[in-house]
């Protein structure tokens, strides 16, 4: 497909890419699917945000999210503890699902976003083609990485526990909040279709 025409992913209409970028998001006139974000895609700054997320990611995984004190006893739990707790015993499948949505998919999201944004930078000597494999991984991981929902889960768990014990947020929670916010920024700005076109345009040069 040439660089100035594309097919709408939702309704299959052949569309011409506008020559000059207008402000605001660009939508398919037939089915209203969003074809490009409201902002220009800047691979360099998004790559920097992805690296920052990656740095925070390991402490967010292994440092305690919260600390519970009750009758002189105390206990802490990290994200990894939650996953492992369900992986023991009969609820193993749920544990595997947690491992998939909270550990594996976020990791793949970081890797694929990093790989694609690296390929989209203007001053890299483009060595390979914009790997369709990584694009596929990126699209799927956007949906199946659920750390943002887990964050709301922490809030609810903490309020539920509030009346039976003293709950203190831990360092892991801080890392997780920042990591989720950074990932949200990257995902909003790096729309898969927009990134795909940028990569195709770079490869065409």
């Amino acid at each position, binding site marked *: 497909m040439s660089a100035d025409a594309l097919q709408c992913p939702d309704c299959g209409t052949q569309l011409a890419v506008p020559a000059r970028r207008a402000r605001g998001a660009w939508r398919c006139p037939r089915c209203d699917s969003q074809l490009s974000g409201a902002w220009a895609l800047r691979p360099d700054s998004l790559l920097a945000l992805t690296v920052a997320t990656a740095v925070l990611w390991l402490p967010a995984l292994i440092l305690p999210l919260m600390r519970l004190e009750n009758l002189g006893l105390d206990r802490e739990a990290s994200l990894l503890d939650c996953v492992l707790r369900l992986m023991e015993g009969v*609820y193993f499948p749920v544990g595997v699902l947690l491992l998939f949505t909270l550990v594996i998919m976020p990791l793949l999201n970081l890797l694929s976003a990093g790989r694609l944004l690296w390929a989209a930078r203007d001053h890299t000597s483009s060595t390979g083609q914009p790997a369709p494999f990584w694009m596929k991984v990126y699209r799927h991981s956007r949906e199946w990485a659920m750390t943002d929902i887990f964050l709301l*889960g922490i809030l609810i768990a903490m309020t*539920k526990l509030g009346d039976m014990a003293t709950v203190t947020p831990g360092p892991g929670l801080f890392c997780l909040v920042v990591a989720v916010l950074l990932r949200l920024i990257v995902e909003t700005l790096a729309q898969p279709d927009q990134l795909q076109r940028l990569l195709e345009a770079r490869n065409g040069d």
Partner: protein
Amino acid sequence: MATDVSPGQQRALAWSLLIAAVVWLVPANLLPIMAVTETGRGKASTIADGIWQLFEAGMPGIAIIVFIASLLVPFFKVLVLAVIYWRVPHENNPRISTRAYRLVYWIGRWSMLDVFVVALLAAVVEFGNLARVEPGPGILAFALAVVLTMLSAHAFSPQQLWIQDPDGADHGHA
């Protein structure tokens, strides 16, 4: 995404995954999702119990969030998807259906909320005989229902809503 299968096959797969999800929603709502044991006495609670407890504890805001994410969204999503799949052969307003599809596609993942809450509580409330939280069988059914609904939405592609031939006759069936 899956371009190598015919629209009819694609829709059959989407339907079967959706029906499987509905089947799992029944035990998900009837069986306890967790059991709280305090000083030897255990108390199991279902999804609805958990929401009611939050209401009684004076946290209506949180209760409403949990109600929307774990009761309303799963049923609403299944219903909307069923209507969309049903209407495909004689779709007359694909724009609305595509919008509805996009909406349920993205809100469906928020149903995992309850699974995460149970995992957190089970991991952190572990004080031997004094107090502990154990996951219940309902959580397995609920997680399955959520994943199956997500996979069903995945199996369907909104392009099907737009491949209407002029006479409005059958497509997908050879």
